[in-house]
């Protein structure tokens, strides 16, 4: 390890918090301690400034800029009207991209949510709950790139007659001697499902942890009272647990939808969008770095935003109604 790296690491660990703490003390010195309304506003300004400068530079300004770019040509030198958007909905390879995102949206979200809820409910009833939750959540802690490698290995394929080294093909061959080994990531009938399965494997833990926390928030007395009154476990689930959990389910579901729309890493690493598996974010990356069509890439980003805007509006409405802790 050379000294340059050590220095960078030290800057990273010590320098950044010190600078930030220094900034706030310095601003306080600047304002002084007098209790005046004007000073209160000035102080709030300093406390908010770093956050809003960064939000402005990295979110607000670029978003507006991208919307403008989406109406421009490939190298952003002239306006082309809606041409990029027309291409988005007419180009045949684009339509496959949109179809794939829709398939991801529906299957990934529903299955992840259902499995997460199921595991949260089941784990709640066993003594080794902590271990179960840790195991299921673990994939959430690793990168999509590592998960991509793990599952490429799981899906590994050797031609029929050869020894299968991929877990999935080997398992299926062992169960059924007549099984035809499948090249999961190359067979266009299975490759999208194979990719979505990786996503589900990773995100179920997230859904489970949040839903499980919601479950623990339901008062035990309520459930005990229902049991004493003779309610079955199923009735308790249907009449008490699920209704009380509904806001949490909505929050988890929304998070999943937002994340799945932007799905990128897993496709980039496992198939790079070949053989009919491309998705918006991966195609956008290609438009940027392979085709250098920044207009088209921007239009794709705007499409993502447009799909997400309803969620944004619901979030804001819910916040304004005071339900921000949902």
């Amino acid at each position: 390890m050379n000294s340059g790296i050590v220095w960078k690491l030290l800057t990273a660990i010590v320098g950044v918090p010190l600078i930030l703490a220094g900034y706030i003390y310095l601003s306080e010195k600047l304002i002084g301690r007098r209790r005046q309304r004007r000073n209160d506003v000035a102080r709030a300004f300093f406390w908010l400034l770093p956050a809003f400068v960064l939000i402005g530079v990295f979110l607000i300004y670029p978003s507006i800029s991208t919307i403008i770019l989406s109406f421009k040509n490939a190298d952003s030198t002239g306006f082309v009207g809606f041409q990029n958007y027309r291409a988005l909905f007419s180009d045949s390879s684009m339509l496959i991209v949109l179809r794939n995102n829709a398939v991801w949206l529906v299957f990934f979200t529903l299955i992840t949510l259902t499995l997460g809820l199921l595991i949260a409910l089941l784990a709640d009833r066993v003594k080794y709950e902590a271990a179960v939750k840790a195991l299921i959540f673990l994939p959430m802690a690793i990168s999509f790139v590592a998960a991509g490698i793990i599952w490429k290995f799981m899906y590994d394929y050797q031609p029929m007659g050869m020894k299968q080294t991929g877990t999935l093909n080997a398992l299926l061959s062992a169960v059924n001697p007549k099984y035809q080994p499948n090249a999961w990531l190359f067979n266009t009938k299975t490759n999208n499902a194979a990719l979505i399965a990786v996503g589900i494997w990773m995100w179920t833990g997230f859904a489970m942890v949040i839903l499980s926390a919601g479950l623990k928030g339901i008062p035990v007395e309520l459930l005990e009272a229902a049991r004493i009154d003779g309610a079955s476990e199923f009735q308790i689930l249907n009449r008490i647990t699920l209704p009380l959990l509904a806001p949490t389910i909505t929050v988890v579901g929304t998070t999943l939808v937002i994340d799945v729309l932007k799905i990128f890493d897993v496709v980039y690493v496992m198939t790079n969008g070949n053989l009919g598996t491309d998705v918006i974010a991966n195609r956008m990356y290609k438009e940027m770095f392979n085709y250098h069509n920044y207009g088209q890439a921007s239009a794709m980003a705007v499409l993502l935003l447009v799909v997400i805007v309803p969620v944004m509006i619901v979030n804001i409405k819910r916040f304004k109604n005071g339900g921000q802790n949902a």
Partner: protein
Amino acid sequence: MRRAKPSRIVLNIVVILLCLIWSVPTLGLLISSFRPRNLISLTGWWEAFKTPLQFTFDNYTHVLSQGHMGLSFINSLIISIPATVMPILIAAYAAYAFSWMKFPFKDGLFVMIVGLLVVPIQMTLIPVLRLFNKLGLTGSFAGVWLAHTGYGLPFAVYLLRNFIQDLPGSVIESAKIDGASHPQIFFHLVLPMSVPAIASLAIFQFMWVWNDLLVSLIYLGGTADVAPMTVTMSNMVNSYGGGWEYLTAAAFISMLLPMIVFFTLQKYFVRGILAGSVKG
């Protein structure tokens, strides 16, 4: 307390089966990463325990020395630590202001934060990349720190504000009466009391940055000397093809730290989520 014995057996079988499905892929990777290269391509990882046992560290030493993974590990650290500390501290300042200070447009500004929570990162890539190119920040750690901070801020402000505004006002008011300044109140009272929320946020942000591919891929430009592990691994996938002995070792190296963080801070993590509704 609980009844119905046969259903309990079914319950346990189902739960254990689910655990198996979830852990076998990772387990297969871990075992394979210790197998010699000639065996990996010949037999499945489940045959690793047939005698004679043949395990090796060669894959790890190779990947760490020749495969850039050693340097990438350090790069991932250099990227992730400030990219976790910066947004949390900056967001905590803003959250404190939103909770305990009076200023105009307070509600409007916070509504904006709520709206920005869901803006796709893709909306920002091209203009930020062009900005970085102009400023010479492309390929620098500072650029990636700032980008991750900007992207992480709305959620961090939102989460911390919800937590900090529910802290007991009496404690903060009495500290003010005792003559404590805002920075003193913030660092000595608010931050320590917010540890559950900060811990959960820190875990989320750290894992997000550590595991991020897109931001590094775009703003770091893919040069090996600044590439974090995710970028290096995705390059390996493309160039090695079926070199499973190195891919498995590399993947496990990249998983090590998040797994340690997760297991050591797991309690904080769950408690932090629950603490969102705790009031003093």
